C-alpha cells in the first residue's frame, strides 16, 4: 500500500511538472501581449506587408462572439442566412475567414468568463459588462487596442465614422492611454416606458394619467372594478405588476423622486449602480411601491419568480395586468408573438397597451435617466493574434451598406420600402428570420435601427412592429426620451474598489428593493435602512469614497 502511494505521488509530481512546462509555452504569448502598450510588435508590422488595399493576401481566420437567444423558430445563431452573408462578403472584401461562436444571451458574462479563463474566448468579444473587461485587463487577459487603433486608423474609416472618437476613446485610461474596449453606438436612446391597458381606461371612462395621483387612483379603480373588467377571473386582477428587478421595473416612478438639482458630481459618485439605487429620494419612491403593495395594487407573488420566468408575461397576455413599467417597447416587441398581439387574440381586438407618462419630479419635469451614446463593449482577449483582421472586421460591420442589410434584410422578404423612404419590417419565418430585433447580435458596433437618416429611422422604427399602429410606437418613443437626462462620460481611470463587486452588489440591491416593497408598512424603514446599510458595508461605501476622491482630484483641484 505504501509503495503504491509513493508511486502515485511520484506520478502526480511528474505530471504536474509536465503541466507547468506546457503552460510556460503558452505563457509567452500572454506575456507578449502585455508589451503591446509601448509599440506594436512585429506580428502587426509583418501583417502590414501582406495586406493590399485593406485586403489580406493570405486568408486570415478570426472568431467572433454572437449571442444565442435560443428563440423559438429561430435559426442557429452561428450558421444561418445572415452569417453566411457576413462570411462570404468579409472573405471577398478582406480575405478574412469568420467563424461565429455562440454564447447564451442570458448568461453571457459567466460564459465569457469561463472562455477567457480557459483561453478559448473568441477573437472579438462583446459584453455589456465593462467591469468584467477591466478585471481581465488587470490580469493581462485583454489586448490594449490603443496602439492598433493609432497605427491602423486610416484603414478603419467606417469604424471611426460610426463610433466617432467619442465612443472609441470612451474607456481610454487618462494616465496610461490604454483602451481595453471600444463602445458600440447606441443609435436610439429610448429605454423605459410606463404602460397601461387602454381598453380598461376607456371602459372605466378615465383619462390617461398624467400625475402620480391620477396613476395611483387609476390602479385603485382597476382593483375596485375587477369584476367589471375580468368577470369570473376577478381574483386574478393585478393592477400593477413588477418583478424582483424593482429598480428597472419601477424606473420612471423612482426617477421622479430624485431631486431635479442633483449635481453632476453626485450623479457621478452615486451613479455606479445601473438602477440608480443610491440616488437621493429613491427610498421615498420605494415607499410608494410599498404602500401600493400593502393596498393590494401590486402583484402579490412577484418576488418568487426569477429572471427569465415567463409567468408575468403570460399574465399580461391573458389580460390580468393593468399597468407596468418595462423596456420602452415591451408589449409590442416579438412580432406576432408580442404581448399585445397575444392579448388581442385572447381577450379581444380592442385590448391594448398604451404608453403613458405620469411621473413628474419636484421641478415638474418627466425626468428619466438616459444612457450616453454607448451600448455594448467590444474587446479583444489577449489570445487574439489577428488584431488587424479583427479591426477590419469591425470596420466592415460598421459600414452603412453592410450593417443596413443586416438590420433590415432583403426587400420583399424581411422588409418593404415605403414611398417616403422609410422601411417597414415584415414578419419572417424560416431561414431568413432574424434571431434578434434588427439582427442586433451581428451588428455589434451599433444598437438600434439606422438607415442613414434620423427622421426616417424613427418612422421606420414605428413601422417595425407587427399588429401595432405606428402612432403607438411614436408615442412610446416620445415618452421614453422626453425630459431625459443623459449620462455624461467621466473617465478618471479605474475605480479599483468596483472590481469584482458588480454582481454581488446588484444581487444585494435587488434583495433590498424586493424586501422593502413587500415589508409591512411599519417595518418599511427598518427593512430598507438595514438593507441599504448592508449594501454600503459590503463594498458600496468604498466605491462611493473612491469615486468622490477621483472626482475631486480631477475636477476640483
Amino acid at each position, binding site marked *: 500500500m505504501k509503495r503504491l502511494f509513493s508511486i502515485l505521488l511520484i506520478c502526480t509530481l511528474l505530471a504536474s511538472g509536465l*503541466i507547468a512546462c506546457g503552460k510556460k509555452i503558452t505563457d509567452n504569448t*500572454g506575456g507578449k501581449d502585455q508589451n503591446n502598450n509601448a509599440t506594436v510588435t512585429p506580428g502587426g508590422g509583418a501583417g502590414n506587408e501582406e495586406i493590399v488595399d485593406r485586403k489580406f493576401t493570405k486568408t486570415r481566420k478570426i472568431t467572433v462572439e454572437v449571442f444565442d437567444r435560443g428563440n423559438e423558430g429561430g435559426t442557429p445563431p452561428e450558421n444561418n442566412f445572415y452569417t453566411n452573408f457576413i462570411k462570404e462578403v468579409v472573405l471577398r472584401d478582406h480575405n478574412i475567414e469568420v467563424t461565429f461562436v455562440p454564447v447564451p444571451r442570458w448568461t453571457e458574462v459567466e460564459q465569457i468568463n469561463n472562455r477567457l479563463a480557459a483561453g478559448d474566448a473568441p477573437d472579438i468579444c462583446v459584453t455589456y459588462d465593462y467591469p468584467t473587461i477591466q478585471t481581465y485587463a488587470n490580469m493581462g487577459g485583454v489586448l490594449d487596442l490603443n496602439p492598433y487603433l493609432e497605427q491602423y486608423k486610416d484603414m478603419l474609416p467606417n469604424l471611426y465614422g460610426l463610433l466617432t472618437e467619442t465612443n472609441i476613446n470612451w474607456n481610454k485610461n487618462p494616465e496610461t492611454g490604454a483602451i481595453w474596449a471600444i463602445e458600440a453606438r447606441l443609435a436610439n436612446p429610448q429605454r423605459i416606458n410606463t404602460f397601461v391597458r387602454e381598453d380598461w381606461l376607456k371602459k372605466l371612462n378615465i383619462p390617461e394619467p398624467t400625475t402620480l395621483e391620477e396613476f395611483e387612483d387609476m390602479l385603485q379603480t382597476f382593483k375596485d372594478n375587477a369584476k367589471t373588467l375580468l368577470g369570473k377571473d376577478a381574483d386574478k386582477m393585478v393592477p400593477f405588476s413588477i418583478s424582483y428587478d424593482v429598480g428597472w421595473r419601477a424606473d420612471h416612478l423612482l426617477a421622479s423622486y430624485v431631486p431635479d438639482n442633483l449635481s453632476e458630481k453626485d450623479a457621478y459618485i452615486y451613479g455606479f449602480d445601473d438602477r440608480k439605487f443610491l440616488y437621493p429620494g429613491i427610498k421615498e419612491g420605494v415607499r410608494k411601491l410599498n404602500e401600493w403593495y400593502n393596498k393590494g395594487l401590486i402583484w*402579490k407573488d412577484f418576488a418568487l419568480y426569477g429572471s427569465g420566468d415567463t409567468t408575468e408575461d403570460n399574465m399580461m397576455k391573458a389580460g390580468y395586468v393593468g399597468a407596468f413599467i418595462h423596456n420602452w417597447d415591451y408589449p409590442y416587441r416579438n412580432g406576432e408573438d408580442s404581448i399585445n398581439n397575444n392579448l388581442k387574440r385572447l381577450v379581444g381586438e380592442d385590448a391594448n397597451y398604451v404608453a403613458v407618462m405620469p411621473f413628474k419630479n419636484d421641478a415638474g419635469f418627466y425626468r428619466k435617466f438616459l444612457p450616453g451614446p454607448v451600448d455594448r463593449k467590444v474587446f479583444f482577449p489577449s489570445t487574439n493574434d489577428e488584431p488587424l483582421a479583427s479591426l477590419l472586421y469591425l470596420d466592415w460591420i460598421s459600414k452603412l451598406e453592410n450593417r443596413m442589410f443586416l438590420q433590415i434584410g432583403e426587400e420583399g422578404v424581411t422588409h418593404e420600402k415605403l414611398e417616403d423612404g422609410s422601411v417597414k419590417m415584415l414578419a419572417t419565418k424560416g431561414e431568413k428570420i432574424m434571431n434578434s430585433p434588427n439582427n442586433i447580435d451581428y451588428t455589434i458596433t451599433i444598437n438600434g435601427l439606422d438607415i442613414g437618416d434620423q427622421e426616417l429611422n424613427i418612422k421606420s422604427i414605428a413601422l417595425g412592429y407587427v399588429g401595432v399602429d405606428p402612432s403607438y410606437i411614436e408615442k412610446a418613443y416620445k415618452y421614453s426620451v422626453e425630459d431625459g437626462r443623459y449620462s455624461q462620460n467621466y473617465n478618471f481611470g479605474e475605480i479599483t474598489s468596483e472590481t*469584482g463587486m458588480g454582481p454581488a452588489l446588484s444581487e444585494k440591491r435587488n434583495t433590498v428593493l424586493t424586501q422593502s416593497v413587500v415589508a409591512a408598512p411599519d417595518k418599511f424603514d427598518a427593512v430598507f435602512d438595514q438593507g441599504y446599510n448592508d449594501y454600503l458595508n459590503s463594498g458600496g461605501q468604498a466605491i462611493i469614497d473612491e469615486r468622490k476622491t477621483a472626482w475631486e482630484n480631477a475636477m476640483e483641484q
Partner: protein
Amino acid sequence: MNGSKSEDSRSNKAIKRNKTYAYIKRYWTLYLLMLIPLIYIIIFRYIPMTYIQIAFKKYSIVQNVWEMELAGNYGFEYFIKAFSNRDFLYALRNTLLLNFLDLLIGFPAPIILALLLNELAFKRFKRLTQTIVYMPHFLSWIIISGLALQLFAPTNGLVNIVLNRMGFKSIPFLNDPAHWVWTYVLLGVWQSIGWNTIIYLAAITGINPELFEAAAVDGAGRFRRIWHIILPGLRPTIVVLLIMSLGRILGSEFDRPYALSNKLVTSVSNVIATFVYTNGIRGLQFSLTTAVGLFQSVIGVIFLTVANAIAKRFGERGII
C-alpha cells in the same frame, strides 16, 4: 528509499519486496486493469488539486498557477477576506443550519421507510411503492422548484388556493424565511428518501433469515423483531452512511438552494455554494472562492475523521 539501517530489517524488506514482485507478476493482468481507474484518478483528481494553491495566490488568467504572486499576509489574504465578509459568515451559518436539519430529518427518514416497506406483506404493492418513491430522485432541482412554485406560491399556488377555499389563510411556504427552511428540508426528504431506502432494503435482505424464524418461535412480534434483529443488522450500514453524511456537513449543493431561493428568503437561502457563485464565478474573485472551497474541504475531512474515530471507539468498523 534506502532509509532502514539494521541488516535484519533490510533482509526482511527484501523478502517482502520479492513477495510483492511475485504477486504482481502473477496477477499483472488485474493490476493492468486497475491502471485505468488509477490514471483517471490521477488526471481528474490529483492533478487538479495542484490548483488549490490559487487560494494562496493572486489569481491571473494569463499566468501559470506556479508563477502567480503570493497573496498578502503570507498567502492567507483571501482567508482573512472571507472571514471578515459578513455575507460569507451568513452563508456559513446557513449552510450549517440547512445541512444539520437535512441530517436530522433526512437521515432517519429512509431508515423508517425501509422498515415500513419491509413489513409489507403484499409484495407487488411493495415493489410498486418502492419504484414510485424513488422516482423524484431523477428530477432536477430546477424542475422541483418549478413544481414547488406551482404548488406553494402564496396566491397562485395550488395548495394555498385549496387552503383559501377551505377558509384558511395562505401559508408562506416559499416567501417567509422560517417556512422556507422547512419547505427546503422536506422537499429534500421527498426527493431523496426513496433512493436512499434502496441501500437499507438491500442490507435488510442480507440479514440471516434463521434469526427471524428463531425469533418467531420465541414469540417475538413485529416490533420486537425490528428492534432486536433488523436494527442491529442495519447498524453497520447506518454508521457508514452517517459518517459519510457528516463529512458533507459543510459541503453544499448549489442547484437546490439556488433553484428554490428567491429574494425574500436570502437571509437563510444564501449558502456557501451560492456565495461562491455570486462572488467567485460572476464576480471573478477566483482566489477568494478557492479559499472558501478549501476551507469547506478541510472542515469536511475533520468531521469525517472525527466521526470515524468515534465510530471505531464504539466498536464499529468505520470507513477509513
